[in-house]
Structures are given as C-alpha cells and as structure tokens.
C-alpha cells in the first residue's frame, strides 16, 4: 500500500477548517498570488501539463477544456463551478464544500483568471442548504479580503461570484442542462456542438468545472505540474476522493492517489463488508458505471483507462458496494427507478425506455417475469444507450450521456447476474 498523504482533505478533521482564517494560516491563497503574477496562458499551460482530468464524471482534461475558450472573443466569458453533486454513490464535493470551501474558491479564482472570466457562478444542488450557507460566508470573507471584487490583490483582475441553487434535478449536473437551468429554463441538455467553451451560458464562452477539479488547482500552482503528474497513473494523475458506501463497515470519503486498487478501498479503507459478509458486486464510479462482479473488483485499479478496459468507468469515483445478501434484480430496479425519475423527458428512447425498464423489473421482482423479458431488457437498454460495444464506439442515441448512464449499469446487472433474473420468470413460463 502506498504512502499517500491526503492533499485536498489534509485539514478536514481540524476545528474551523472551513474558515478563511484557518485556510490562510495554512498558506491559503498563495497559489492565487502566484497565478496572478503569471500570464493566463502560462497558467493554462501549467494545468495542461499537470494532466489534470475532470473529477465530475467525464474525466475530460481540464487545461484542454480551458484552451477551447476563444481568447479574442468580445463576449463575456463565464466559469461555472458544477456543485450539483447528485450521482448516486457520490458525496465528495459536499465534503469539500463543508470542510475546505476556500480551497475550492481559490481554484475558481485561478480558473476564472486563466480564461478571462469576470462573473462566475457556483451551481450548487438545491438540497445542499447547509453547504450553501457555508459558501455564502466564504464569499463574504473573500470580498472582505479583496480576493473577489475589483482589482483582486492589486492585480487589476476583477471577479464576482454568484451562488446559484438548483432545485432538485439530477440532469442539471450535465453541463449543458446546467446552463439551461442557470438561464431560468427546464434542465434540458443541448445538442453539441456548439460546445459550451464556444457557446455556453447566454451564448457566451463558458467553462464548467467540478468542485474537486477546481480544488486541485491551488496545489498544482503551488507545487507544479510535474509534482502532480508524479501522483498515480501518468495519463490521469493526482489525488482523488473516493466515496465508498453500501454494505461496508466503514463507509466514507477516502482521498487516495489515482490508481489505487479497488480492493484496498473496500477491504482496507472502508473496513470490509458489513457483518462479515461476502462481496457480490460493486459500482466503481457512481450508479452510471457498469457494475463489476466480486472477482472483477478484486483485480482492478481505480484508474480512468483500466476501468474503461473493463467496460466500466471511473466516473465520479463513487463506489457502491453490494454484499451477497443483496438481490440483484431489486438493486437493478432501484437504479432503473432512479433514472426513470430523473430522465428529463426530452429524448424518446430515454423517457420511454426508463419507464419500461421500471415496469419490467418491478414485475420481475414480484416473480412475474416472462421468458422474453431478459432479451427485452437487452433490447430496451440497447435502444436507450446504443449497442454497448466500446471497440466500435457504437453508442449515443440520446442528446446527452444519460442514455448510456442508465443502459450500461442495467445491462451489466442482467449480463453478470443472469441467473437471478431468470429466477424471476414465472414458473409455468420456465417449464413452457
């Protein structure tokens, strides 16, 4: 096991760690001072060189995302901090906002400076009421210390930040749905292109970054891209907050380097399976990732590429553990119901498909499945999320990735635990 020391969560157990005074006493805002003394282009280059990839779920390279913003555009540029954490199994951004909000804010100011943004938004999920209060205090303190407002730290750079509360829609974590929501509309994802970096909020160039991604920035500026690259796998390095929940003894958020073996997270950090039970299956990266069987889970590292090879994904790094007592058909129904509830309704395959998945899985849970149901489940998931063949890249039947986010996990349940689904078929059907 590695000797990794927490970077983003180093101080979260200390008293008043969320305050400005505490953060400053630990050297906070020194990275901002450094960034403001550099040119925006140099900051972008440094972040590009760090190989930082987004922590929200998609894992897109952060520096590259920033570099798509046209520097010569005469439109205002916007930075949006995506704090709409809603992916089942994920609860790490909430921790960062509760315990280290100024680290995130410093990252935001650095990002805004790099892309030339003067008005920035924090889109925080509406249910995070307490966290919203903490962020309001944070913003107040930042204005008081000239970290926001006009001529920040005598650099000539101006920035205002607005906290914007969502209102209970999972889809608004998808960046174009978030933009629609911020514009005061229902959160319906947009067809891309144009990508937000060209035409985002109010048709202006916009960058959307996740809370944890932004929280990495002060450390990259302070300690350099090379240091960041040295943590974990080169292609997707850095610290990562892994949420582990479900049937484990010690659930929680664990900061580790990218690439930690999944079994270490489950059996060491999270203290193993509840009640001395046996591992059955795991979501490695939130409920939108395909599940892994116990056998697969014991032999995989939490790395973007390795999980893709296993036909799953690192996603939001929310690990949901299921022990041997968990009924896989019920668990599958639970997840399908989540997606049916959260489908925005814009694309027919997703809106209708998720509803049908719930209907079929409900009847299966009640032992009333028919012999055609297994094939039909595959047919529906294929229709929502495309045929899942990563090698051919044949997916994408809906405007946003929500379609795949429901198709992949549901299909993985049926494929990997087919026996349990077969048991849900009416007895007379099986005989026939």
């Amino acid at each position, binding site marked *: 096991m590695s000797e990794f020391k927490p970077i983003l969560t180093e101080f979260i157990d200390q008293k008043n760690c969320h305050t400005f005074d505490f953060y400053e006493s630990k050297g906070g805002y020194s990275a901002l001072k450094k960034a403001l003394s550099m040119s925006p282009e140099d900051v972008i280059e440094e972040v590009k060189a760090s190989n930082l990839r987004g922590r929200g779920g998609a894992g897109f390279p952060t520096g590259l995302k920033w570099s798509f913003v046209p520097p010569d555009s005469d439109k205002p540029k916007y930075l949006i901090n995506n704090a709409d954490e809603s992916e089942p199994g994920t609860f790490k951004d909430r921790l960062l906002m509760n315990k280290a909000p100024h680290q995130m804010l410093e990252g935001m100011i650095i990002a805004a400076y790099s892309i030339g943004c003067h008005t920035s938004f924090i889109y925080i999920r509406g249910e995070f009421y307490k966290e919203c209060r903490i962020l309001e205090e944070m913003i107040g303190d930042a204005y008081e210390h000239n970290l926001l407002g006009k001529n920040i730290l005598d650099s000539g750079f101006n920035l205002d930040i607005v906290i914007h509360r969502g209102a209970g829609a999972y889809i608004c974590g998808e960046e174009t749905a978030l933009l629609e929501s911020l514009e*005061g509309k229902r959160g319906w994802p947009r067809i891309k292109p144009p990508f937000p970096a060209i035409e985002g909020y109010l048709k202006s160039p916009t960058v959307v970054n996740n809370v944890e991604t932004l929280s990495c920035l002060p450390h990259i500026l302070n300690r350099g891209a090379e240091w960041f690259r040295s943590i974990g796998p080169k292609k997707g390095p850095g610290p990562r907050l892994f949420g582990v929940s479900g049937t484990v003894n010690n659930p929680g958020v664990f900061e580790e380097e990218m690439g930690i073996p999944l079994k270490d997270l489950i059996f060491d950090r999270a203290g193993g399976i509840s009640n001395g039970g046996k591992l059955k299956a795991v979501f490695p990266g939130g409920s939108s990732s395909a599940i892994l069987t116990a056998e697969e889970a014991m032999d995989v590292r939490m790395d973007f590429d390795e999980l893709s090879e296993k036909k799953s994904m690192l996603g939001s790094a929310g690990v949901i553990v299921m022990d041997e007592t968990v009924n896989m058909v019920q668990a599958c129904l639970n997840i399908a119901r989540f997606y049916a509830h959260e489908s925005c309704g814009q694309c027919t395959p997703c809106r209708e498909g998720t509803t049908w998945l719930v209907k079929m899985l409900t009847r299966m849970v009640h032992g009333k499945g028919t012999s055609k149901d297994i094939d039909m489940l595959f047919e529906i998931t294929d229709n929502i999320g495309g045929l899942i063949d990563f090698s051919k890249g044949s997916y994408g039947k809906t405007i946003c990735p929500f379609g795949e986010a429901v198709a992949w996990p549901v299909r993985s349940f049926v494929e990997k635990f087919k026996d349990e689904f077969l048991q849900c078929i009416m007895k007379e059907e099986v005989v026939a």
Partner: protein
Amino acid sequence: MESKGKLFQYTDNKKVENILSQYPDNRSATLPLLHLAQAQLGYISTGAINAVAKLTETHPAELMDCVSFYSMFYLCPQGKYKLQVCQTLSCSLNGADNIVEHISKKYKIKPGETSTDGKFTLMKVECLGSCGTAPVVQINNDYHEGLTIPELDELLENVQ
C-alpha cells in the same frame, strides 16, 4: 385559494432587487426568485408564478414549464415538516425502506401525502448525496444522517 394566490407579493423587495442585480439577464434569476417565493409561501402559487414571470420577462406558461420540471418546487401547500427519505441504492441497502414504512404507519400517510394535522408530508426522494452516512432523511432544509428508527422518533417528537 386562487384569488389569494394571485395577489402574491414578495415581502422583501430588497432581496428581489439584489437577486436580479446579480445576473446578466433577468431570466437567469428565475430559480432564486422561485426559491424566495417558496420560502415565503411554502409553495409556488399561481400568483407567485405570475409575479416571477413578470420579473423575469417570461410568459407565465413558459415559467410553469420550468417550475414543473424541478422536484423541489411544490405547486400546492405541503406539510409543515417535509420528511424527505432518500431511497436510492446506498440508503436502500441501509434501511431506508424501513424508515418510509415507519413514518407511513406513524402518521398514517403514504409517500406524497400529508398528515391530517398538516404537520408532516412524507416524500420519497432520490439520492441526496449523503451515501456514506446512509440512511439519510432531509427534514425541510436539514440533513439527518445515519438515522436509526429511535433517533428518527426522537427527532420527530422534538419538532412537534
């Protein structure tokens, strides 16, 4: 009810102005203005829709299209205490169903219903982002994490 609703006025106009001043266009202020209206009224009335539509320069029907999309906006009055039980996987694996059943029996309400005294509304909600401290129940604005049934009972006694 309707005529009362149509007369909706914000009690804190300064807050309204402050919200509008934060955004480059008025329509972007829609969600915060709706939150403010709901904090005042407990739900979004027809009157509130008309008021927000006017402020955000949208048609009330267009605004309704937005309001109805979001699960946190209520189109009718709710109980004084909204018991929002997370039912997504990690909470479900840690006893969320028992909590729903307990509340159901205790106040004789099904999910979506309000107790006859108007105090409690039971809601099954999707992932609240508190999976590590499952099961979680959000009562109005506050999260209550890692709840056992006795703890929940104590909590409910205290809010009565």
